[in-house]
């Protein structure tokens, strides 16, 4: 396989982009965080925009920005990770169907309920006939798309791949996540998430898309080295799994400069992070992001966006620090994320 470079990036989350530069973060008093609204009309035709749910809008917007950032017109493949897919349209069709007891139903929301609506709409907009897959495996949906990226780059004709992660919220379906304990019962401000000692987390919507290329450019952000997925791991095995993953890339845990961790304030499962924060990575700069942008099944794509920026700008963003350690010239970043103790994903990035 050729080496893979991150050549274009774009993200939408509940925080403005400049929170990375140190801008005072947006504080939410609710446990469900909505992504900031951008000027979608500036890049998407109104006749297309009128049917799009938040996930499709965010994804198409980020896709266009990430491609533009890399100066790529049409990628060779489009890969999307989304754990919950187009929930708003699913909820709409489901509600209409049940309320009308299977009466006369309008088809648009059904058409748009399929998980690959996002990938299909991007292809349609770009007129891109290349390989196009959608992965939907809880918190490793984006990581699954990254694995397919590696597979596609084995073809020497493949030069650029658009890959991203997206998840949206919807009123009832996201509300259900409070009932089964995924969302905290008590209201909490996002910035206080890591002081919490209760079950559940805060749920959000976000999208982040990237142009990955086989060619390094002067404007490239970083190199994407590897990704690994494990469906279940015991807490006691997490350090050895990570070390094994690093080892297959010829890297030791000591070589890692920064770890970006998916801590989400759920006291039942943050012990995975405790284990490595107090263990193999105790002397390393540790970052979190869910106190800023919340939790969702594709939010590790936001961590990927952070990682790319840190390696290019050589700066550790203050708003995201979990400890006081710094690193002047970050060279290797490990992203580790899981949800409810399952679907563990590792991503390794390296500076150019």
């Amino acid at each position, binding site marked *: *396989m050729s080496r893979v470079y991150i050549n274009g990036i774009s993200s939408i989350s509940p925080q403005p982009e400049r929170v990375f530069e140190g801008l005072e973060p947006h504080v939410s008093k609710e446990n469900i965080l909505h992504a900031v609204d951008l000027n979608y009309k500036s890049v998407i035709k109104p006749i297309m925009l009128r049917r799009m749910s938040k996930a499709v809008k965010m994804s198409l917007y980020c896709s266009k920005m990430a491609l533009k950032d890399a100066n790529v017109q049409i990628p060779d493949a*489009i890969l999307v990770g989304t*754990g*919950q*897919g187009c929930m708003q349209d*699913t909820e709409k*069709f*489901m*509600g209409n*169907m*049940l309320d009308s*007891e*299977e009466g006369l*139903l*309008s*088809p648009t929301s*059904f*058409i748009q*309920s*399929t*998980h*690959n*609506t996002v*990938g*299909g709409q991007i*292809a*349609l907009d*770009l*007129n891109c*006939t*290349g*390989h*196009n*897959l*959608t*992965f*939907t*495996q*809880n918190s490793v*949906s984006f990581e*699954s798309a990254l*694995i*397919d990226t*590696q*597979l596609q780059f*084995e073809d020497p004709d493949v030069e650029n791949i658009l890959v991203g992660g997206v998840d949206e919220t919807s009123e*009832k379906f996201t509300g*259900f*996540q409070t*009932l*089964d304990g*995924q969302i905290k019962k008590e209201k909490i401000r996002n910035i206080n998430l890591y002081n919490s000692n209760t079950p559940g987390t805060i749920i959000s919507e976000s999208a982040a898309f990237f142009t990955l290329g086989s060619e390094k450019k002067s404007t490239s952000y970083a190199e994407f080295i590897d990704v690994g*997925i*494990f*469906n*279940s*791991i015991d807490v006691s095995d997490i350090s050895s799994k990570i070390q094994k993953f690093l080892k297959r890339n010829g890297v030791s845990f000591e070589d890692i400069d920064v770890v970006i961790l998916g801590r989400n304030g759920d006291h039942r499962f943050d012990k995975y992070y405790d284990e490595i924060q107090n263990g193999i990575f105790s002397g390393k700069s540790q970052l979190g992001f869910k106190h800023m942008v919340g939790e969702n*099944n594709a939010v590790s794509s936001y961590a990927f966006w952070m990682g790319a920026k840190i390696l290019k700008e050589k700066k550790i963003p203050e708003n995201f620090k979990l400890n006081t350690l710094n690193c002047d010239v970050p060279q290797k970043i490990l992203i580790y994320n899981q949800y409810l103790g*399952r*679907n563990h994903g590792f991503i390794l990035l390296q500076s150019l």
Partner: protein
Amino acid sequence: MKGVAVTGMGIISAIGRNLNENHLSLKNAKNGITNPEILSTQHSHLPVGEIKLSNAELATILNLPENHSYTRSALLAVHSVKELLENSGYDQFPEGTGFISGTSIGGIDKTEQHFYDYSENPEYRKYIQAQHPGFTTEKIAEYFGLNGFVTTISTACSSSANAIMMGAQMIQSGKLKRVIVGGSDCLTKFTLNGFNSLKILSEEKSLPFDDDRAGLNLGEAAGYLLLEAEEYTSGRSVLGRVSGYGNANDAFHQTASSENGEGAFKAISKALNKAGLSGSDINFINAHGTGTRNNDLSESVALQRIFGKNIPAFSSTKGFTGHTLGAAGAVEAIFSLLSIQYGEIYPNLNFKTSMKETGLDPVTSIQNKEINTILSNSFGFGGNCTSLIFKKDE
């Protein structure tokens, strides 16, 4: 190219609960299309390919505890992966076995059953996450103790074909030594009403590739294959090989296929190229052939563009099983491997009149002949087109 070895398979569909039953139905041209009996719906007049086992019966067969939280897709999948395991020669899947499952709707059957229950009845809340396809995949993984690489592909009706493609690539790249690939989808009110709102469901048994075709019949099924790296195949039976694959996007419309079948054309071309074959090497085509006006014409045009006047024998097996959505690619991969194994071409049921536009006739009765190479097509919403090529092991 030698292709990736298939060393096990398992299936459950409307025409049988295992490989043998499916094979007999195919051989005897016995379809599984009936009115819905297990799925509770207002549209009881719409024919479907339904598996006549209730969830409770499936749970009993699988020895699940009373308080289990398996979705119907998970029950069907576990049923078929159990068969796969039995005929793979392993007692249990070796450590590091990967799992890639394709599904279009996962466990949405539970969401539609309990949508109004969640707020009042805590006992149903175990199904809240079931709405998302990954949940169903995890249940299957849990049952078989698969704890490594586990993922789900959801690209509507090409989902499991894409799972097979990705699995083959994972083996070829050396990322995995062994991977279970395929897919599962059950009948739901959600999909039945959805396809009905698109006005593409037939009120009669579907007529793939017929000039009078009036839409598709939905079906449910699960089908899985075990793919293994070469070094693990010695002394074991290799059922066939995945030798070519390709995915392309039609980039034409959210649900409809283009008039010139561009996505299908590109997917088939990629698959042939990957397999190092030309069109004349293909002995038989298991077509997507859903029975809708749009698909069958678009697919026929794509076949004409690839094969010119020499289109190989082809048929759609959706007249047997109904369109099993995300599972269709895996079901038809298994039918293709049965064709190769037994030297049989299974018929395209219910066909009478060729389409005016193309004049193409599918195979209408069982044929016995040596089959070495099969092309299998699966196309889905969002313009998602996938073609797979299976070869006899030599």
